[in-house]
């Protein structure tokens, strides 16, 4: 759910931009440092950005028979970490605004806050917490993607309720109004995105174990570590 161009009053647009800025700047600085130290990361990060962009363009079957698009923030945060997702998400949202007319430039700050900051951090937090307590990978992945998706929509509801308080119920009335509209469509969609993320991750575990280990999602197996150590010893 992107907030459309011009939807927010100017003061709100600026305020959400200011709220997003520290996260994006922090992500941009760590990304710049990473690229300066390892120039080859540019291509990998660019590929990750393209993957995020394409993931958000996949059509997801909805319970009502229609289809929607996943936010991709949960999977992105699990694979690339939230600070990197703040930057990749901002780039993706900018491309979506200019290439697909989804979202907007005046609402970029608000959309970045919900989709590139809160969604990834909330999803990643839940994923890490569950993994720390020994919950199986796929359960943690589902929960992370579900929470990332749902928290994105909750923040969007808050943003809209703050901008358009209800004439009778005020902020809480508007929050209930926007929240209940989103709940009808977004809870099933969050479940759908969680399931899709599990399916993608299951296939990635089978086909791209190396990349997942490099990204820190999977821990290198003992045999793999031994192979790497012996290769290092031979090299030395």
């Amino acid at each position, binding site marked *: 759910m*992107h907030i*459309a*161009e*011009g*939807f*927010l*009053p*100017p003061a709100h*647009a600026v305020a959400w931009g200011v709220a997003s800025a520290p996260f994006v700047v922090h992500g*941009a600085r760590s*990304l710049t440092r990473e*690229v*300066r130290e390892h*120039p080859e990361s*540019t*291509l*990998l*990060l*660019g590929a990750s*950005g*393209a*993957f995020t*962009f*394409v*993931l958000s363009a*996949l059509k*997801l*079957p909805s319970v009502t028979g229609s289809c929607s698009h996943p936010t991709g923030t949960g999977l992105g945060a699990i*694979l690339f970490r939230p600070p990197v997702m703040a*930057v*990749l998400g901002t780039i993706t949202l*900018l*491309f979506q605004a*200019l*290439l*697909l*007319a*989804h979202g*907007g*430039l*005046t609402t970029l700050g608000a959309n970045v806050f919900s989709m590139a900051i809160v969604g990834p951090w909330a999803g990643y937090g839940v994923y890490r917490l569950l993994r720390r307590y020994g919950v199986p990978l796929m359960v943690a992945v589902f929960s992370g993607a579900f929470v990332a998706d749902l928290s994105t929509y909750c923040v969007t509801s808050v943003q809209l309720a703050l901008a*358009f308080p*209800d*004439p*009778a*119920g005020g902020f809480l*009335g508007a929050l209930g*109004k*926007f929240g209940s509209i989103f709940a009808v469509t977004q809870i099933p969609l969050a479940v759908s995105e969680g*399931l*899709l993320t*599990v*399916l*993608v991750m*299951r*296939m*990635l575990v089978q*086909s*791209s174990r190396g*990349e997942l280990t490099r990204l820190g999602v999977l821990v290198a197996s003992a045999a793999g570590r031994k192979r790497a150590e012996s290769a290092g010893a031979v090299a030395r």
Partner: protein
Amino acid sequence: MLPIDAAAHSSRWRRRHPVDKAVLGFGLTVLAISLPPWPGAALVLVTALAVLLGPAGVPGRRLWRAYRVPLGFCVTGALTLLVQVGGPEGFVSPAEDGPLRAGELLLRTSAASLGVLLFAFTTPMSDLLPRLVRAGVPAPLVDVALVTYRMSFLLLDSVHRVRQAQAARLGHTTRAATWRSLGGLGATAFVRSFDRAARLQTGLAGRGYDGTLRVLVPEARVSVRFTLWSVALLAALAALTLVLERPLS
């Protein structure tokens, strides 16, 4: 290539400097959200439409195909303003000034969207991104955005082909098969994006890649005349709004 970007590459204003178009397009967007919706946003909407279809030469059909997307979001969002929650008339009842607020919101968002579309339909991303370095955006960040932009089209194309192949193998006939196919599609996109990055890395390393992606950017100068005309047009719109606001409200 995506339709808006394809249209931008063949735009009449393609050779103009992005700053020229940014002043006009984003200026219209800023006016749309800052001026009173009536008559300010309405004037911006008419002006943006006239510039897009007239001097900028954007085909009407292409514009409509792109414009209906944000318009759909705007209409859905504006509908919520028609009702209120709580109050003496029941839990949910029609809001007294709901139609007025919804109408104003629709005017504002539709006018603001046209301003951004004016920029998007005349400026290819490949002209814009490399110039962001001069605007102070760190070069590594711009490089990542450039790779993302160029790789997105390849990946979208790959995903489209994989989807066609899945459909040909009856991968979308049942709900379970659709989900399985979707999972495969997402995983394939990931594997292909990393594979392309690795191959690009190898190719660039062979050409002495030092960490910076140098691309040719079409030569263009900021037109002082165009920019001044744009600023004059924006000022005239603001002035006209202030003059007409009282008699029309």
